[in-house]
């Protein structure tokens, strides 16, 4: 029943519904015709449903091994495990565009479902903008990357998926990351709606913020998951490469982070209104252009996408309409928006402005560094490389002051503040930071890691201090503090936790600069010493797997004679595809990772030797743990009552608004 033709039809239907969704509510809102405006939620839900059907058809084709569908034939095979048949659907260009469209459809449906107490006209316009964008992408999907195209004659078996992609971490990385990217379409739609209406006020700031925070949480998790995946799959402990594709995800994260902070100023002080609208447009524009320019082949060397110029031109046209159109509207309408109120430089809003300046400066550097090589080659016919050394040298000096200000920014009162009383309250953080500097200077080599350790401790302790100060911990009976803590808005905790998460990540990054590794070629029975651990290669065995044979090593790791762990790094040779993969073995105690890789076999069969790569990575898990903590902070502030103003007024469980995006 779920045939590819039905999927194709549902996609076309979704495209038409999206076009209607993009046009009718705008007309209705313009004419103040309530009945036409009320079409918007229905159309959004209908479009989402059609897309869901379409996506289900593609999954069904993959699961049932329908190799007459070109996409399935090219990316799947009978022998593939069921989980990867499903997740493989979005592991290729056509399927991932469809997933994009589906998530966008879900965003529209979420606004329709949870935005019931938004003013009718605003909701109609927001849904219309989402519909317009969705129509464009569905058209792209239909015309240039049809996931349902058939092949004739249908092959007996598909070409199969790369064994490397058969990894649970990777299977769920794209949906999370895409939800982050696409989630920023909702703040974007709110910004466009506000420009059309010509009104940005505190209420707008309050409505837009939960959507931005939710998208930000997903994007944070998505980036961290990708980084973690490359850490455990690459086999040498690398986690971030400043690659154009990675930068493409970092850029919207930076502007998105700026957005969730500046929206606070809109909400509390009606300031930074025009700026926030611009940030909302910019964040989604960067999400769009990042993902799609990579596919056009300009930014990445992945040949598979460089070969379809029609796709590139279509993408560029779509970007021109969406980004160019929204920026033109911005240029036309923003000057007439009323400017925000005046505020003192030293105040909470002043600190938030500084946060925005620093985040956007980092973003500008990353954008410039990423785009410079192609533009140099276009304009001056000169090829240059911009890589890790450049980005490290330029972004870190901007990030360090950001981290310092992060410590006391949340403690500054609104409107007008004095720095000294706030700094006085941070005496404990200051002392602990000084101690951290001392310890780091003693135990850590390099100026930058020492500085990073210091600021990381500063952020974490200052975030904790913010909470303890607010609940007057130890300055009143514990029961009273508990009472105060319960009365405190959850978003305060959210902020503190998210900030502490940044500190945790920075600490992990700083410690990783002290990682140690060793590459050796040894016979079985040898003991190697690294970072105070004794690593003994006990044996290497052949072990058969479902569709591969593996060479599995047993490495015993001892610390002062006590057994710490037994590692089993392995090397798999896949029979069918003539490929081998390396399975890294990682032992973590959350304070450090012991990381073992088995390499090639050398020597004669009688006396074989094996190449081993051993790593000691201090605090490595903290890099991703910090990101998780940041996201938890985001979710916590989403559950704040004040964030739920956009939810229905009737007594109904309304906690879903957070999870809606």
């Amino acid at each position, binding site marked *: 029943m779920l045939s590819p033709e039905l999927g194709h039809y549902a996609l076309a239907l979704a495209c038409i519904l999206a076009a209607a969704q993009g046009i009718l509510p705008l007309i209705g809102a313009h004419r103040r015709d309530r009945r036409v405006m009320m079409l918007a939620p229905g159309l959004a839900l209908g479009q989402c449903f059609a897309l869901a059907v379409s996506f289900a058809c593609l999954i069904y084709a993959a699961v049932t091994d329908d190799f007459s569908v070109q996409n399935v034939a090219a990316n799947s095979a009978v022998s593939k495990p069921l989980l990867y048949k499903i997740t493989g659907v979005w592991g290729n260009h056509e399927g991932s565009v469809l997933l994009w469209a589906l998530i966008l459809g879900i965003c529209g449906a979420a606004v329709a479902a949870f935005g019931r107490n938004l003013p009718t006209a605003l909701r109609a316009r927001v849904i219309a903008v989402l519909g317009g964008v969705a129509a464009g992408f569905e058209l792209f999907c239909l015309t240039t990357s049809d996931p349902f195209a058939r092949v004739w004659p249908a092959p007996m078996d598909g070409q199969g998926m790369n064994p490397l992609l058969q990894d649970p971490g990777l299977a769920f990385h794209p949906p999370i990351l895409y939800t982050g990217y696409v989630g920023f379409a909702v703040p974007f739609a709110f910004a466009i709606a506000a420009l059309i209406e010509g009104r940005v006020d505190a209420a707008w700031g309050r409505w837009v913020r939960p959507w931005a925070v939710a998208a930000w949480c997903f994007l944070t998790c998505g980036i961290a998951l990708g980084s973690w*995946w490359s850490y455990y799959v690459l086999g040498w402990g690398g986690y971030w490469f400043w690659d154009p594709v990675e930068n493409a995800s970092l850029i919207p994260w930076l502007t998105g982070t700026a957005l969730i902070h500046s929206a606070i100023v809109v909400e509390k002080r009606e300031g930074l209104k025009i700026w926030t609208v611009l940030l909302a447009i910019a964040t989604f524009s960067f999400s769009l252009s990042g993902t799609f320019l990579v596919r056009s082949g300009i930014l990445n060397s992945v040949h598979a996408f460089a070969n379809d110029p029609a796709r590139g031109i279509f993408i560029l046209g779509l970007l021109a309409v969406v980004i160019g159109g929204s920026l033109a509207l911005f240029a036309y309408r923003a000057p007439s928006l009323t400017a925000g109120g005046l505020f003192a430089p030293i105040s909470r809003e002043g600190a938030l402005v500084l946060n925005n300046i620093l985040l956007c400066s980092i973003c500008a550097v990353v954008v410039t560094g990423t785009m410079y090589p192609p533009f140099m080659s276009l304009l001056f016919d000169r090829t240059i490389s911009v*890589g890790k050394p450049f980005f490290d040298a330029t972004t870190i000096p901007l990030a360090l002051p950001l981290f310092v200000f992060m410590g006391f920014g949340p403690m500054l009162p609104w409107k007008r503040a004095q720095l000294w009383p706030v700094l006085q309250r941070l005496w404990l953080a200051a002392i602990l930071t000084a101690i951290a500097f001392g310890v780091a200077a003693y135990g850590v080599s390099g100026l930058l890691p020492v500085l990073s350790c210091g600021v990381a401790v500063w952020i974490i302790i200052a975030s904790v201090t913010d909470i303890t100060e607010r609940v007057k911990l130890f300055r009143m009976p514990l029961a009273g503090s508990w009472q105060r803590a319960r009365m405190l808005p959850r978003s305060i905790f959210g902020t503190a936790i998210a900030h502490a998460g940044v500190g945790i990540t920075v600490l992990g990054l700083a410690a990783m600069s002290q990682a140690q590794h060793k*590459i050796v070629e040894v016979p079985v029975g040898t003991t190697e010493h690294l970072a105070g651990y004794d690593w003994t290669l006990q044996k290497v065995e052949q072990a058969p797997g479902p569709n591969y044979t593996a060479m599995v090593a047993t490495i015993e790791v001892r610390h002062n004679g006590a057994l710490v762990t037994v590692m089993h790094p392995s090397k798999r040779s896949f029979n069918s595809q003539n490929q081998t993969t390396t399975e890294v073995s990682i032992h973590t105690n959350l304070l450090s990772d012991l990381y073992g890789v088995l390499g090639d076999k050398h020597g004669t069969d009688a006396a074989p030797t094996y190449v081993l790569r051993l790593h000691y990575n201090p605090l490595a898990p903290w890099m991703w743990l910090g990101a998780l903590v940041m996201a938890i902070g985001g979710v916590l502030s989403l559950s704040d009552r004040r964030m739920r103003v956009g939810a229905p007024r009737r007594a109904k469980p309304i906690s879903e608004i957070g999870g809606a995006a």
Partner: protein
Amino acid sequence: MSHSTGQTPRTRLRRIVTALVLGLSVFLAPALVLAVDDPSEMLPDTKQEARAEAIGSQLRCLVCQNESIEDSSAGLARDLRRVVREHVAKGETDHQIMDWMVARYGNFIRLSPPLSVGTILLWSMPVLALLLGLGLAFFSYRRRAATPVAPPPLSEEEKARLAKLTKE
């Protein structure tokens, strides 16, 4: 591919990784061996080896995407690693080794491009962006401080909306 670069598994692997950060599919040649580098490549003197690694991480693996020769297992990267280590063992300075590389491969091999007329915008971007941001904030602050305009009073509709909202 029209040019055989003698790419080895890890180069390809990196491509997959980068492609997959965005969930894209890649058409790749088979044989995805993740080679562990040959330990015999390393210099016996740990200080010299550390120096060689530091120099190598500034040099681009020419056939890879933004990857240094230290991180890549492409054949060319391996050869260049060996060259760097030979020069280090000979006692050449970092500067001399970098010049040697640039003389052959041009500035393209440097992951951090040298400051020149063409890259001045690139290198000045952090300061430029920061100054622009601070300047913008400063001027809008000064302008607003000079013309203290009270925000227009709320309309009845707005008042009602706000009251409704803040009751929550």
